[in-house]
């Protein structure tokens, strides 16, 4: 179906680009992160052959966990066919020789920027998130020493200050992405810049969630079936985005939609941001008699 021709792996690189010592170091950090859900573990980030901000954190995590028989999917803004997604997919196909896919159920490792697939994840799958700023307290507290102390003491009052400001300014909680969550009733975590639409998918997910920040050299994790609660107020409960429209391609009424301007007159269309989900639905509808 979507399986691509696997480019011949380049024998000049170690498996998945990083050397074995580095991968071991990252795995050890990942084990710690899984053991303390939501806790930010520092790791010795390496130079990757692309700039910070392009997913170097996520790539190092993917490199560390990838095995020869894994099937890799990479998405950027929900799409498999954007430059960043294509480059990273090809990078691992070339350096590790692993199979790649655009199909969510077929993948064992999914590296993502901005989205969680609409197709429900299954046990055994691993999500790898690219994180720009791992520290959810950074917006109000510039000192790293202080934010670590705040995490250690569960001193999270200021997180609600942000939500309070939203309501005071906009009448509702206007934070729509990187919406902070409490993991397993303990650590407050930045779920990476996914839309808050995807936050409920983190809660008790059967898949393992790994988060990597390349510039900040921090990683953290949400193990399968962990409670993940979005912060809110009693009288302003957490809500996800909703659209009046359905997807113009597949007609889905419950997926996350992107707004497209389709002509010079400014006509708009709404389509699924998850291209694989949308394509699968469209295909099913066509094949149906």
């Amino acid at each position, binding site marked *: 179906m979507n399986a691509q021709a696997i480019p011949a792996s380049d024998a000049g690189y170690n498996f998945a680009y990083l050397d074995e010592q580095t991968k071991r170091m990252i795995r050890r950090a990942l084990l710690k992160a899984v053991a303390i859900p939501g806790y930010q573990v520092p790791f010795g980030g390496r130079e990757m052959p692309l700039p910070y901000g392009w997913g170097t954190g996520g790539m190092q995590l993917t490199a560390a966990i990838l095995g020869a028989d894994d099937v890799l999917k990479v998405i950027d803004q929900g799409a498999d066919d954007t430059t960043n997604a294509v480059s990273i997919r090809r990078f691992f196909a070339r350096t590790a020789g692993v199979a790649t896919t655009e199909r969510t159920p077929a993948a064992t490792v999914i590296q993502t920027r901005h989205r969680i697939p609409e197709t429900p994840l299954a046990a055994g799958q691993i999500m790898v998130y690219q994180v720009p700023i791992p520290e959810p307290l950074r917006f109000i507290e510039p000192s790293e020493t202080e934010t670590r102390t705040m995490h250690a003491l569960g*001193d999270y009052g*200021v997180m609600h200050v942000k939500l309070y*400001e939203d309501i005071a300014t906009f009448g509702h909680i206007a934070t729509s992405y990187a919406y902070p969550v409490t993991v397993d009733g303990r650590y407050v975590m930045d779920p990476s810049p996914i839309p808050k639409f995807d936050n409920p998918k983190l809660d008790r997910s059967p898949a393992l969630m790994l988060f990597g920040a390349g510039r900040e050299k921090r990683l953290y994790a949400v193990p399968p079936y962990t409670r993940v609660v979005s912060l809110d107020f009693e009288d302003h409960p957490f809500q996800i985005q909703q659209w009046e429209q359905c997807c113009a391609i597949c007609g889905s009424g419950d997926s996350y939609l992107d707004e497209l301007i389709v002509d010079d007159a400014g006509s708009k269309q709404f389509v699924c941001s998850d291209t694989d989900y949308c394509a699968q639905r469209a295909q099913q509808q066509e094949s149906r008699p």
Partner: protein
Amino acid sequence: MSAAEQLLPATSVGTEPLFAVRDLTRLYGPEKGCQGVSFELYPGEVLGIVGESGSGKSTLLSLLCGRCPPDRGSVQYRDGAGDWLDLYAASEAERRTLLRTEWGFVEQNPRDGLRMGVSAGANIGERLMAQGVRHYGQLRAAGLDWLQQVEIDPARIDDLPRTFSGGMQQRLQIARNLVSSPKLVFMDEPTGGLDVSVQARLLDLLRGLVRELDLAVVIVTHDLAVARLLADRLMVMRRSRVVESGLTDQILDDPQHPYTQLLVSSVLQP
């Protein structure tokens, strides 16, 4: 005359101290810092610490409020449940909890005590949120109520503190501290950077709140007029030591120590 007389026991006379300090010492050099300070503070009592710059007032204040561990001595606080807590034997978590619940700290510069990047309402609500209040309506109501109490127009609840005057910022800082109904408030030159006319208003407000809320206060000031107006008793510091302590008006009207006499006689009396 006795018709209206109601001999209630005065609220301010606690039978047990709230705060006990023993031999508190931290020196940065000979006579730099503070040494050998002991006192007890009762609920509702206002203690003024006076002395010139460099006499150790500020060092003492940071030792008292848990910001800086002493070389020697202890600071004990009797909490809401009546149990004594040794400040420096307690965990960082306990100290922080104390500082945002039963204690308050009013900084000389409101920029140090406020979050300048968030609205007045959020500044007031922060302590409540830290204590677990998760109801926006309640936070809003508390914000409006406290703005009124500190004489700031409630319509300004969504404005940033940087759009406020210095006096308003200081009053906002006071509201931010008092919203959690603290029992003990530390103040570091609270009227320091303000115009005289603004000072008077702030002092008047503080006087009223202290009595109304039965606050115990430790206030550091070099302004003897402020001390006279707010403090029940004074400690006079010089070169890291307390040279004289006692009832405020007695210290100011009949100072005993040569240094206190010099201090009092150096003040211009309008």
